[in-house]
């Protein structure tokens, strides 16, 4: 059960031009920083990236966009990225915007071996165009297909050498559902431990879903919108 690789470069060694990748994270939170760095270094191109967001100009998937590696983004929200906007308007980049819950559930469907799901999200909107609508119990639902990704790349807090993963706080987000959904799943973790160290009841992603794992060094964990309150402030938000 040799899942441990030396680092991001080895983990992504066989990702090739034109492949479809899932990348975990919400905004800049819970991003697989190290694998994104390795993908930029490798320079692999024409990628389709399924990720809730597209990073910012100089962090996250934004780095791959600046390097012109992305052919298509499948996301729910992409609004923080000037280079993204430039490439989209110039026609260099294709984008498919889908509701966030649909994005998450299409990942889960792949991981659960369900070819399609029904969701009310997008009924009566342009998202429904060309899709099958079906009424159950008086309510309309869209049929949406499970994703089909060559690789899923996720970031966890702790992992063991068998691939079991534990996420921290809201850095969990899309990572568990994408981890289930890749034909090959790569996990980068802050702490890599021996089997038996993690409590079996605390595992979020069972190792069966994870094919490669490595410990990333020196996570930057950039904050997109630092918001704080003053001590003694009446308002909480």
């Amino acid at each position: 059960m040799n899942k441990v690789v030396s680092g991001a470069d080895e983990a992504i060694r066989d990702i090739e031009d034109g492949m479809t990748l899932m990348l975990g994270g919400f905004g800049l939170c819970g991003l697989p920083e190290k694998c994104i760095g390795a993908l930029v270094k490798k320079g692999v191109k024409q990628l389709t990236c399924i990720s809730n967001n597209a990073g910012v100009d100089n962090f996250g998937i934004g780095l791959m966009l600046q390097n012109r590696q992305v052919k298509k983004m499948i996301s729910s929200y992409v609004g923080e990225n000037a280079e993204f906007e430039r490439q989209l308007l110039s026609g260099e980049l294709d984008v498919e915007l889908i509701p966030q819950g649909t994005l998450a559930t299409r990942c889960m469907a792949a991981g659960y071996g369900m070819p399609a799901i029904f969701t009310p999200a997008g009924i009566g909107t342009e998202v429904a165009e060309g899709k099958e609508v079906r009424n159950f119990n008086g309510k309309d639902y869209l049929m949406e297909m499970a994703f089909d990704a060559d690789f899923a790349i996720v970031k966890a807090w702790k992992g063991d050498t068998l691939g079991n993963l534990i996420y921290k706080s809201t850095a969990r987000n899309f990572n568990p559902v994408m981890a289930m959904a890749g034909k090959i799943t790569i996990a980068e973790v802050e702490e890599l431990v021996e089997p038996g160290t993690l409590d079996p009841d605390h595992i979020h992603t069972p190792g069966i879903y994870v094919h490669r794992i490595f410990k990333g060094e020196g996570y930057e964990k950039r904050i997109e919108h630092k918001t704080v309150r003053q001590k003694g402030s009446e308002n909480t938000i």
Partner: protein
Amino acid sequence: MLDKTGIAKRIAKEIKDGYYVNLGIGIPTLVANYIPESLDVILQSENGLLGMGPFPFDGEEDPDLINAGKQTITMLPGSAVFDSAMSFGMIRAQKVHLTILGAMEVSENGDIANWKIPGKMVKGMGGAMDLVASAQNIVVAMQHVNKAGESKLLPKCTLPLTGVNCVKKIVTELAVLDVLPEGGFKLLERAPGISVDYIMKATAGKLVIEGEIPQMVL
């Protein structure tokens, strides 16, 4: 005429004890400041958290702990973290009692447009389409008229829709209105100092006025 804080204060009155509430970005986020402490209310953040607390004190922010607006936040005691699929699962299954979000336009049959303006860069719908298609109870926080002075409460939305037949209540700087099941905006309350006549002129969609319209109490 209410300012943003006033709109947030008025919406806070829609929240009942024991509610699970999802607050959208913008004015809805401010609502959290005006929920009475006597009420047990739990905020859901659709990136995967129940029990969202206030912003952290400077220096105590955690990059792994953000809300759906990507702001650093805190967790209250009794919080639970989950993945994005479960988060939207509980939204679709109508476990969230109240969803508060902004809008560009609302139509008199409860359609909402809040994600896309043709010709402008589209940022995406995020979780808005899931929320409006699923929620039992949707309150919209919005300006009654746009910057050009045109009503945003319309017979029919002109912008691409986010969802259909979903908005239940609207709170603007001028008024509180219900969207009637049979169509039409039913005027419930006036903002302090605002006349019914003023609201009529600011409302392009069908406005239903029955009896005396009280002034809001904030």
